[in-house]
């Protein structure tokens, strides 16, 4: 048994034993969870993937004369105008207002460009009030120019995510990528044995061993915090709500993407340290890809309840080939 305080002291002295979630699997396998808990202090976990439910609160600072911004556009991508005069929230999945650009440059791209230090055009319209007389503002800004840019993501870091396939006779374009006709491929998302929530999950309590509000994390290359459970949080499919200072992030871990014929999204890198306080925590940190069940949904049926066509795990998914027995003609389809 250790305490977080003891581990923090070891970290300060440079004596803490820190291993990755993958290294922990081997350690627990070879030496047992008890011994692993004795000498391993921290297990590092992480994920990197498309997380549409992401965005950034920005406070622009006031113009002179000042404006109460209502319709706000950053590089022609609309940001939310229902906050105080010069506050906004730009969401990653927002497409461009220009129909010719549309999903090719959206909110996620604005966010990445801000992190890269690029100039962004701000155009905002307001309605005049006695205290905010200006009607319009049009100016180039960079991340350095704004007062705050705080990333707050309502739902990141899914503990596990169902895989996707397609029963239709034509290929379909989804947020899980391009799915070929007649179960031609399977796409999956999730870091499996590296995922933070997976490594911290306690099946007995249906809660999490160490992760909670205030846990300090790696977010997009900078320091971030877990600020609570994310939207659609439903253990064992837990999610996280996180925040971090965009000004301290690194474009290596904040990457804009466009899922073809679907929309813009933001790929974000998240890392969470798990303090190994006892044997139970150590044991869970040794969870393997093959232990994590993943349902395969038919995205060819666009309903709330998509049919489950099979059950697999992250090990099989990562191998690249899955034998799937599908009902149509009772034929077996590979991959």
């Amino acid at each position, binding site marked *: 048994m250790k305490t977080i305080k003891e581990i923090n002291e070891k970290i300060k002295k440079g004596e803490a034993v820190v291993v990755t979630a993958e290294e922990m699997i081997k350690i627990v396998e070879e030496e047992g969870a008890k011994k692993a808990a004795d000498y391993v202090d921290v297990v590092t976990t992480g994920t*990197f*993937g*498309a997380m549409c439910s992401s965005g950034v609160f920005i406070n622009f600072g006031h113009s002179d004369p000042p404006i109460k911004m209502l319709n706000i556009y950053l590089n022609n991508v609309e940001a939310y105008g229902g906050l105080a005069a010069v506050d906004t929230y730009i969401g990653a999945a927002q497409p461009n207002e220009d129909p010719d650009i549309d999903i090719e440059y959206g909110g996620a791209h604005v966010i990445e460009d801000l992190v890269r230090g690029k100039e962004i055009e701000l155009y905002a319209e307001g309605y005049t009030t006695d205290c905010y007389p200006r009607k319009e503002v049009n100016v180039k800004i960079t991340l350095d120019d704004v007062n705050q840019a705080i990333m707050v993501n309502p739902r990141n870091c899914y503990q596990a995510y169902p895989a996707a396939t397609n029963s239709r006779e034509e290929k379909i374009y989804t947020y899980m*990528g*391009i799915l*070929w006709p007649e179960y*031609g*491929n*399977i*796409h999956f998302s999730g870091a499996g044995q590296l995922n933070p929530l997976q490594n911290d999950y306690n099946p007995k309590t249906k809660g999490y061993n160490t992760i909670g509000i205030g846990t300090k994390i790696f977010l997009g290359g900078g320091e971030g915090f877990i600020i609570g459970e994310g939207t659609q949080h439903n253990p064992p499919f837990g999610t996280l709500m996180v925040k971090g200072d965009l000004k301290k992030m690194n474009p290596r871990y904040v*990457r804009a*993407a*466009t*899922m*073809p014929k679907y929309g813009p*999204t933001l*790929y974000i890198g998240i890392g969470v340290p798990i303090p190994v306080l006892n044997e139970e925590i150590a044991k869970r940190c040794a969870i393997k890809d093959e232990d994590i069940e993943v349902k395969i949904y038919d995205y060819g049926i666009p309903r709330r309840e998509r049919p489950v066509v099979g059950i697999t795990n992250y090990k099989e998914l*990562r191998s*690249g080939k899955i034998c799937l027995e599908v009902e149509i003609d009772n034929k077996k389809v590979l*991959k």
Partner: protein
Amino acid sequence: MIKKRIYFWTYSKYISKPVIADVILNTGVKINILKAKVEPQEAFLILEIIGDEEVVNKALEYLSKYGELEEIKDIIKRDEERCVHCGCCVTQCPFDVIYVSEDYSIEFDKDKCVGCKNCVKACPFKALKVLE
């Protein structure tokens, strides 16, 4: 036995002639048609030519009478800065060129690529280019 991949543009006057069948029958070469597109001025094909070196060269010589050809080398280019190894391209490849390695990175077996562009269209980061 060697294998060469080529782009082949048939001259417009030969579009209605069964050039590929003729090459096969006259030289005994094996041809795998990877792509074929007929347009008003020309027909464009991507061919995989298989056989002994002598036979392959003979086939290439024959083909050159009916159009222009160019050998395909390293036709797929990845922008290493843009690619984040998300894997969206992996299942799009009909020739198993793209695979996930043990350390989660996405690798290309470039020699097998025929330039079909399925991966290019699927890339969320526009990190892939097929040279034309």
